[in-house]
């Protein structure tokens, strides 16, 4: 590649490197923009899709760079959701649902952005604590350990009635997440994920993915780099959880368990776990698929009859697609590559 002289060369180079991020953000912003003209119902579903996008990008940040499948990110989403709920709910609502909260938390009423960041940060801290020992594991053992994180979180949140309300829904969260809030955080998440994956730490981590022994022999501290990815991933998951909670207005521990885990993992696998483009592609494709399936489940009018698929067929189709992808195109739609610069040099 010929070196161009002067500032314009450097700018062009920076643009070229950042192209995947720019392209992906453009696509997502375009989708949100288009949805803003649609009825409120569609806007809500797009918002949900954007929240899912944050969740998938979060999962990708760890899985894509470390090569280890994590089942535990939904646990961090739950952490984020509960933390933000506790900090931003009106004290009046808290006293109804969580009468036994410590006074400081019961009285707190933080602004929404602070609550969101707190959710992400606490999730990241939990990940740091939990991940520090666990990142030493590899392969299947590591994945099983992350599964344990999910189950432990589920059990703890489901029974820690004084703080989380236990099995009951925690209602009354300020439902401030609309299309633009979700979009803003989606763009932020993609930016964070992209900037991170361009760092030296992430590069070393990806190198170690291929041959861990060789990497360690070369002096790379695989465990430390893995932990960094894990913590950043948890931070973003926490944010996703906050968004979900404040979109629905409620937090239920049941919503942060296996079904959500499956959905996010499916999105990542289908889109392609090797690149940010894959993560985004997965979220977008599943969102579109969900729309189509919803339509099928509502049904079509044919004469006097309505032909509709039974409820639940959407989940079956999603699982089937995930299976087909892993069998026939294991690298997913994006195939491990980032979206490329479409113009010839």
């Amino acid at each position: 590649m010929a070196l161009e002289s002067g500032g314009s060369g450097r700018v062009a180079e920076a643009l070229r490197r950042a192209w995947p991020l720019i392209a992906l953000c453009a696509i997502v912003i375009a989708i949100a923009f288009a949805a803003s003209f649609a009825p409120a119902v569609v806007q809500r579903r797009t918002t949900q899709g954007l929240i899912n996008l944050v969740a998938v990008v979060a999962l990708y940040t760890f899985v894509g760079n470390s090569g280890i499948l994590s089942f535990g990110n939904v646990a961090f989403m739950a952490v984020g959701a509960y933390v933000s709920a506790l900090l931003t709910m009106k004290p009046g609502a808290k006293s109804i649902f969580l009468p036994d909260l410590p006074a400081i938390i019961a009285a707190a009423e933080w602004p929404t952005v602070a609550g969101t960041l707190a959710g992400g940060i606490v999730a990241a801290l939990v990940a740091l604590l939990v991940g520090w020992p666990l990142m030493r594991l590899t392969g299947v053992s590591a994945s099983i350990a992350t599964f344990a994180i999910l189950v432990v979180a589920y059990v703890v949140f489901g029974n820690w009635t004084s703080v989380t309300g236990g099995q009951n829904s925690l209602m009354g969260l300020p439902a401030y997440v609309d299309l633009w809030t979700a979009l803003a955080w989606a763009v932020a998440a993609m930016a964070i994920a992209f900037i991170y994956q361009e760092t030296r730490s992430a590069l070393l981590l990806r190198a170690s993915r291929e041959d861990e022994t060789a990497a360690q022999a070369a002096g790379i501290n695989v465990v430390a780099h893995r932990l960094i990815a894990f913590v950043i991933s948890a931070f973003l998951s926490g944010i996703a959880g906050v968004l979900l909670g404040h979109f629905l207005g409620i937090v239920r521990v049941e919503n942060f368990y296996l079904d959500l885990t499956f959905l996010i993992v499916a999105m990542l696998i289908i889109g392609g776990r090797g690149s940010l483009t894959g993560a985004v592609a997965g979220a977008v494709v599943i969102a579109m698929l969900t729309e189509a399936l919803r339509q099928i489940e509502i049904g079509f009018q044919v004469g006097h009859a309505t032909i509709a698929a039974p409820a639940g067929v959407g989940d079956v189709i999603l699982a089937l697609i995930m299976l087909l992808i892993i069998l026939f195109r294991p690298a997913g739609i994006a195939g491990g590559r980032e979206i490329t610069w479409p113009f010839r040099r």
Partner: protein
Amino acid sequence: MERLVQILVDAVSVGSLYALTALGIGLIFGVMRLINFAHGELITIAAYTLLALFGLPLPVMLFGAAAVAILLALVTERVAFRPLRNADPTTLLISSFAVSFFLQKLLILVVGSRLKGLDFLPVLGRQIELAGIRLQLLQIVTILVSIVLLAALTWFLRATRLGLHMRAAAEDFRMARVLGVRANRVIAVAFALSGILAAAVSCLVVVQTGVVQPRMGLQLVIIAFVGTVIGGLGSLSGAAFGGFLVGAASILLQALLPPDLRAFREAFVFIAVALILLLRPQGLIPAAGLKERV
């Protein structure tokens, strides 16, 4: 004193159940290095088969459940796992996860997500007295069935040609094939055996809970598979032991923990898993020659 014995019997009974479940998972992991999440679906679908065959003579019901479980196991192997025989462990794990969810969602689609009552072998719910201590007949039956199945499996593995092939394949798959052991046959047998174990567990659980619901297998498997990990991935005796330990510990914790901590007992169990994975990644009774793929 009576209470103590009752708790111990309960612990052994539940432990046996989880041992059988863990064995089903361990068998597959041994030959294929695959954690079969779908094992839970084998248990669930076997239970729904019992429901479907309800009213027919007992042997027909049992045979039907076993047949369906075995068939389903073989089909999932052929369709979802054989094409991935040489894939990396993460891909296998993903496939297993996808198959599990596919079957579960399909089942929900067909039968709905509500639980259904099934009054199967209510005679086993009777109380009996052994040496002056009141126990449930089902607990004794569970323990006996587990012992019989374990003994049968052990005999099969140690005394038959096919069993020898399976043990060889579990230790060094490639070398076994070099010697002429047929990969497909060994793996198919492992899956079929896991189907039998799943059906047995299914029957026992249905008798105990009287209920059939789409998540029942998954709940069992999540805990049992922890046992497989603790016991040592790749070791069958380890899997059985680990499953037993986890099941028994769950009951003992329930009895020993103060009331407000009791609900967290599963959390304790899982934290123990993580700890064991850290301190002894090869498990408590590791398999000889278990090679972690780099």
